[in-house]
């Protein structure tokens, strides 16, 4: 089976989904080809969700150009796509004169990168802005434009909007080979995948940690990916959500950052160590370093309340610390969005915008559709809904009053909605990423068997076929005895 599109985007991470959403407004047929069985299962999953403001990247780099712009665009994207975005501002905390000098350098960087309203502040203002910041902090870089999102939600929202505008999503389709025909061919590239072949005129490489392989398969630029692994810890909800607090950065990373999340948890992100490609293990040493680092910034943080620890690799291109966004110099028609490591989430809307520009300048015909709808309506979030809305929902369907996940107050109807939307949740973790069932403090101890039953019912399969995540991640073998 082969389908033909104008554009194929390889990778349904936040980058690929944002690009799909950006290009969906044009009269083009687009397919997003994803190796995994769901959206955002690679680097986008192992992410702290910070929308960094953009004072870190060295001026003049691609990162510097897309980070501040991406951060700026998040306001509009959040409104149009209906995802949660909190622009709380952030502080980089300094503890001595040396730190202060560094903060000043960061501020200059930020000014050069177009980051608005940066200032250096003293202890009184620090504690006014975040009372829980360490009392030892003597100075801080105050950056009002920083924010945070739920990275899954952003990717899912962007792809939902793209799909609603006609984009095709092909899952469980790892690209195994790419055939490239002559440049005049309308369907120049043929991607071979176990889920079927995809032919396209233009190919966008947004394959995250697989970007070097895609580029190689297409005969384009040769580069190597470095698996810069990071561990991340999520703590239980706090009565008041923390503002993102950063330490003074090191040459390779932003250091251990403490931040609130859109759901009121606290995230400690992230370590940085070069490890074997594909290593998503957490390490005791990393987790301890995160907790210790967090306590330096927020001494009264209760680090016993760990809800989840996870890890993933940032897609870093060896030999450069920058993003690679542009048309391949070797294979015209192939567009690269590679090396999208940190600050990939913050930059995603701007990477999409830049990709559009690059394609336009390369001669890709972009005709606006008349029927493009930029708006995606978020599914009802029962926990956040006002009481009156809760009542309305329960009245419309009693399944809204049937709470399945007690920690996050997720009713059955919300889970069913996650399974029925497009692109749909096909696994327990897919459900969790869409509506948070199982994301809370008990980590699905109480609700997993119920979510499995709902998935089995909705997908019309046996519980033994229900997956935790991707292929092979079965949860139960089957019935113990008797006939079910």
């Amino acid at each position, binding site marked *: 089976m082969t389908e033909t599109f104008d554009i194929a985007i390889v990778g349904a991470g936040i980058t690929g989904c944002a690009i799909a959403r950006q290009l969906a407004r044009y009269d083009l047929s687009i397919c997003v080809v994803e190796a995994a069985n769901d959206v955002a299962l690679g680097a986008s999953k192992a992410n702290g969700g910070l929308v960094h403001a953009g004072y870190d990247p060295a001026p003049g780099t691609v990162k510097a150009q897309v980070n501040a712009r991406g951060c700026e665009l998040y306001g509009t994207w959040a409104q149009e796509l209906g995802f949660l975005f*909190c*622009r*709380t*501002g952030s502080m980089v905390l300094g503890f001595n004169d040396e730190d202060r000098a560094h903060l000043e350098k960061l501020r200059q960087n930020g000014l050069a990168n177009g980051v608005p309203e940066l200032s250096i502040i003293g202890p009184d203002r620090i504690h006014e802005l*975040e009372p829980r910041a360490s009392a030892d902090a003597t100075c801080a870089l105050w950056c*009002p434009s920083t924010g945070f999102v739920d990275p899954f939600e952003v990717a899912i929202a962007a792809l939902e909007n793209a799909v609603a505008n006609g984009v095709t999503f092909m899952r469980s389709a790892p690209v195994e080979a790419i055939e490239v025909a002559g440049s005049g061919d309308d369907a120049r590239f043929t991607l071979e995948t176990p889920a079927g072949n995809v032919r396209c005129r233009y190919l966008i490489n947004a394959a995250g940690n697989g970007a070097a392989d895609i580029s190689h398969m297409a005969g384009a630029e040769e580069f190597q990916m470095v698996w810069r692994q990071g561990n991340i810890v*999520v703590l239980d909800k706090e*009565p*008041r*959500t923390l*503002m993102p607090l950063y330490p003074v950065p090191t040459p390779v990373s932003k250091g251990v950052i403490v931040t609130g999340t859109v*759901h009121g948890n606290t995230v400690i992100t992230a370590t940085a160590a070069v490890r074997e490609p594909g290593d*998503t*293990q*957490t390490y*005791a040493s990393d*987790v301890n370093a995160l907790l210790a680092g967090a306590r330096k910034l927020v001494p009264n943080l209760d680090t*016993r*309340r*760990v809800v*989840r*620890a*996870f890890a993933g690799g940032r897609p870093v291109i060896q030999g450069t610390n920058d993003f690679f966004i542009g048309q391949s110099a070797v294979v015209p028609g192939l567009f690269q969005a590679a090396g999208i490591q940190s600050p990939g989430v913050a930059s995603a809307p701007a990477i999409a915008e830049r990709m559009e520009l690059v394609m336009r300048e390369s001669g890709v015909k972009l005709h606006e559709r008349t029927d493009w709808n930029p708006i995606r309506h978020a599914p009802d979030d029962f*926990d956040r809904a*006002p*009481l009156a809305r809760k*009542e309305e929902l*329960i*009245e419309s369907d*009693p*399944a*809204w*009053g*049937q*709470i399945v996940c*007690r920690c996050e*107050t997720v009713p059955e109807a919300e889970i069913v909605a996650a399974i029925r939307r497009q692109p749909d949740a096909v696994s327990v973790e897919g459900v969790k990423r869409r509506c948070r069932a199982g994301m809370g*403090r*008990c*980590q699905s*101890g*109480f609700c*997993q*068997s119920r979510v499995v039953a709902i998935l089995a019912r909705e997908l019309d399969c046996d*519980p*033994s076929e229900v997956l*935790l*995540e*991707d*292929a*092979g*991640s*079965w*949860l*139960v*073998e*089957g*019935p*113990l005895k*008797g006939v079910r």
Partner: protein
Amino acid sequence: MATFDMRDERTGAEAVAAVQTQAFDVVVIGGGPAGMAAALAAHKARARVAIVEREQHLGGILRQCIHPGFGLSHFKQELTGPEYAQRFIDQVHATDIALLLNSMVIGIDSGEPTGATAVHTVTLMSPAGMLQLTGRAVVLAMGCRERTRSEIKIPGSRPAGVFTAGLAQRYINIENLKPGSRAVILGSGDIGLIMARRCTLEGISVEGVYELMPYANGLRRNVKNCLDDFGIPLHLSTTVTRVIGHDRVEAVEVSQVDERLAPIPGTERVVPCDTLLLSVGLIPENELSVAAGVELDPRTRGAVVDQSLQTGVPGIFACGNVLHVHDLADNVTTESERAGAAAAARALGGGAETNAVADTSCELTVSPAGIAGYALPGRITAVALTKLNFRVRRPVDTARVRILANGEEVFAGKVRAFKPSVMESFPLPAKVIQQALDLGVSEIILSVDPVEEA
């Protein structure tokens, strides 16, 4: 751009004029063994009582505890969990206690603290919609949850096949589903031990039970009945240091630990398995309590209560595993009957009559010392015979309980053995409390101190 406080928009503080309200004397939150015993005791004291339960059935976690061992002290008869629960369910059904099943409490509003006249409003939701219950007293009986892999920070990958023991118990005993074929169990708490036997009986091979501490954490009888009788090895001072497998568990790495409980490098061993069950502790589920303004004891992670099991919020009581993790359901029942009776007394008789010999001049805090991990109640506000509960942090063959006031020993118990698996209980005589008050102290210390064998 101002700081954006997420909580502002998510509190359920909006006006709820449209929500229907029902009035009771005592509202019990939770329909497990604690909630049922509290409700029955309050009903016996002639209070109008409601039980709010999340599930469709009363009984709580006992419904999946199909093993025997329940009722030995309360009914002088060995029952399974469902049998034990059913005795209370039948009693509840024989009363006019209002049952709100399939109902989740989303908030408790205690209004302004106005002493004896305070009325608490419990907001709940169910498939039938929202409802508010009012009561002069509320009993918190929400039970506990299991500690997760994340809380004990087991490193490694995150495949399917890592279950808390209670979740695996639910799959096996309620859902008739087999969670795997080859299991490793981490933690020798009672649920872990029970599940080792259960898995074996259901044809799931148990490779071993691993325990971080140098002693078994469950009751002695469970070690014997569940492991020894089935030839399941118990590996002490050993823990899981890595989960292996990308999609489904393929193995776990176990390591021995030193006396500081740190893994000893070089002792790693890989145990092939497809399932890891965790029985690594229980945590009282107090999110609702905290939201209602109830102060918690960091040691128990349950409410700080007085001798009548009343929390720091007047009229809100707590009992069972939401207060402190118990060893036996029978003890939950006994404790919860006290809470229910005290709640009814408060609701029917007003504020000061929660205890017959209440003495406004009595205000003592109780703190643990020595090897006592906690002391409950944390406050004593009446000079009366007071039941004190505690657990020791490590097993000792010879130790004694001492009560200290201002460094002076005002009470000393018998020398005997203590085990962390046992929730200890002893009656503190009124005269000891009076003695402490006479010394002018505001705090007494419950100290369990090992003594040299004679």
